[in-house]
């Protein structure tokens, strides 16, 4: 499905790219593919509809028609609107001025509340804070055991219920204790419940009443489909939400629920769960999410950036070469010339899917750029395309020619090799759908 939609998107954009100017029909055609992409990403049907009409309004205007690269322009508009809808920037947890901060977690069964509770505790513990966990799920077999075992791993305190104790009572007792023990953060893990289960919704209302939480977070499975809007609306109405957490985002789910929930509740995504481990928790990045929703790597952004600072044809060629893993030192040198306008290299590389994190020590500062340029221009054309042939004596020659040291030449070659490897990795992922964009 993933690849299929991407292919469709590719061809739609190809069509758009081929044209100098766009008419309304072109925009409609392009947006049709965007629509498919968003629906396939599980964005709610109505949200998609509203979103697209906003984009269309912007796209069919002068902005697009006047632009030199209309295809890029549409993608850019879509992307920008998505980022805007997603909240623009990441929203942190708001800590109470008077500790402890009480965080109440709510959500459907199996959405990942318990795991998130532990991750949050671990994160604050690591920052030198004193978190306290509350096991207020009295229904699921061994739920309290699960949280207790996690608390032990983290080295954090926990309150669990006595035989027959109600979740409200457990919560009340826990908060009182946390206050006495001068804790900074109380995290209340509740049972999973269906938003249409009246009894259990009443229960969480009561828990919320005794907890008086500073932050009420809805924990949502990142794979959730259209039902996300019903769930979020119901919880919002009953207990009021301050934000939500998107879990299981380390897989290939495109996470359309984020857009839907954001849209219907107006509350931000606060965290993203990216694995089963206790540290696998990230802040939310609307721009990354936008690209993910469209099923494209950040290559789009890369090309946009490139297009702004270097000429468009070259940017497309560059992206193509990156995709085919034919990126050579020659391209690298080419890039250096316009790099100053594009921003730091590590930022540029950060946009390549699969290369989100640069290897340590790989950063090119402004001053270094000149030296790197000199080194590359001291190479023969063959050396630039096939750096493997650069042996010891060639290295000496290049160093002398560029007025640098062999060490610097070595370093550049090593770094270039790393970049290439990363691109290769990114390319491989692309075949599985993570970088499915054709230029």
């Amino acid at each position, binding site marked *: *499905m*993933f690849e299929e939609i991407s292919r469709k998107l590719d061809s739609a954009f190809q069509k758009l790219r081929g044209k100098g100017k766009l008419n309304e029909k072109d925009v409609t055609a392009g947006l049709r593919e965007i629509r*498919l992409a968003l*629906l*396939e*990403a*599980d964005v*709610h*049907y*109505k949200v998609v509809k509203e979103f697209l009409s906003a984009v269309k309004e912007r796209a069919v205007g002068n902005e697009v028609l006047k632009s030199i690269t209309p295809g890029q322009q549409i993608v850019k508009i879509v992307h920008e609107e998505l980022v805007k809808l997603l909240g623009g920037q990441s929203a942190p947890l708001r800590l109470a001025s008077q500790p402890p901060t009480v965080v109440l977690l709510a959500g*459907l*069964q*199996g*959405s*990942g509340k318990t*795991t998130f509770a532990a991750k949050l505790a671990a994160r604050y513990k690591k920052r030198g804070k004193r978190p306290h966990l509350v096991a207020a799920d009295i*229904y*699921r*077999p*061994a*739920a309290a*055991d*699960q*949280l*207790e*075992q*996690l608390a032990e*791993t983290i080295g954090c305190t926990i309150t669990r219920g006595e035989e027959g104790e109600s979740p409200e009572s457990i919560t009340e007792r826990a908060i009182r204790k946390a206050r006495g023990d001068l804790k900074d953060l109380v995290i209340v893990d509740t049972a999973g419940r*269906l*938003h*249409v289960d009246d009894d259990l919704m009443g229960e969480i209302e009561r828990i919320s009443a005794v907890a008086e939480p500073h932050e009420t977070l809805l924990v949502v*499975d990142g*794979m*959730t*489909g*259209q*039902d996300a809007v*019903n*769930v979020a609306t119901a919880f919002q109405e009953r207990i009021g939400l301050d934000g939500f957490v998107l879990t*299981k985002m*380390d*897989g*290939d*789910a*495109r996470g*359309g*629920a984020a857009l839907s929930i954001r849209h219907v509740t107006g509350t931000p995504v606060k965290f993203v769960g990216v694995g*089963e481990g206790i540290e696998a928790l990230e802040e939310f990045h609307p721009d990354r999410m936008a690209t993910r929703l469209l099923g494209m790597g950040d290559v789009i952004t890369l090309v946009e950036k490139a297009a702004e600072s270097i000429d468009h044809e070259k940017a497309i060629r560059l992206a193509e070469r990156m995709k085919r893993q034919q990126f050579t030192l020659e391209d690298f040198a080419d890039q250096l010339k316009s790099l100053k306008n594009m921003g730091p290299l590590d930022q540029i590389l950060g946009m390549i899917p699969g290369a989100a994190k640069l290897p340590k020590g790989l950063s090119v500062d402004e001053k270094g750029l000149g030296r790197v340029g000199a080194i590359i221009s001291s190479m023969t054309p063959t050396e630039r395309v096939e750096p493997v042939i650069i042996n010891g004596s060639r290295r000496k020659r290049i160093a002398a020619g560029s007025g640098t040291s062999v060490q610097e030449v070595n370093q550049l070659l090593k770094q270039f090799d790393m970049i290439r490897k990363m691109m290769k990795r990114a390319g491989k992922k692309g075949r599985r759908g993570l970088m499915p964009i054709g230029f």
Partner: protein
Amino acid sequence: MAGFFVNLKRGLQKTRSGLVNSLKSAVTRQDPEELREELEAVLLQGDVGILAADRLIKSIQGQDGDRWQLLEEEMLRILEGEGENGERPPITTGGPHVILLVGTNGSGKTTTAGKLASKYAGEGKSVLLAAADTYRAAAIEQLQIWGERSGVDVISQERGADAASVAYDSLSAAIARNMDVLIVDTAGRLQTRSNLMDELKKIRRVLQKQGDQYPQETFLVLDATIGQNALSQARLFHEAVELDGLILTKLDGTAKGGMVLAVRQEVDLPVRYIGVGERADDLMEFSPKEFVQALLE
């Protein structure tokens, strides 16, 4: 099957009123464009997915006759699949019938294992449960509680033990004790994690070591709240461990489970059971016919 109908209806009540009413109003529309748009809205909001929705809409567009019935027939055709709609292997007395449950985190595997155990035990069969989720905190304890509820023994090792070794031991035990059914609960995993999928393959391999017939059935436990990722799940789990079918859980919510149509159309896997609650008896056999009827009636 009678119970299925009643319970399914109970579980699908909210689903029905919403989906059915809008579907009904949609199929009676005359203007083809309007019809298309309304149908699409209803189907897509039910997580049916674009391809299945397209096929459904095309099938009744420009057709004469009762479009309502045509739609129902088409949904049924998709759910029943194009290939062999194989029967489930019967539970015989010649050695344990092994059911392997796989799925993503929190999809309902352990609960389903507990429900299945209680169902078979209730039918007078001898049942054993295997706690092959050795990863998640308190997963073993969770299954043990389910075991106690239905008086079924649980074979387990300590947390962190090799999951395949638990699976192997439990099958040995099931054979030695001449059990009718062995249900293997596994750790939740995302289908894109290849190392974890390898672990699953290993579990399957060690079961097969004790006889080619094992496991007789491997089910993907799917959360009905999940959207289009269900397809990726079906594909990748199928690739790894050769699925025999799906179990669709949490149908007692408002999620419509429409992706079952998409999965059936794309990966050709039948749904065998549905989960409609958290109690031991909230498990029903799936019948495409009754499912569609309950949805459209």
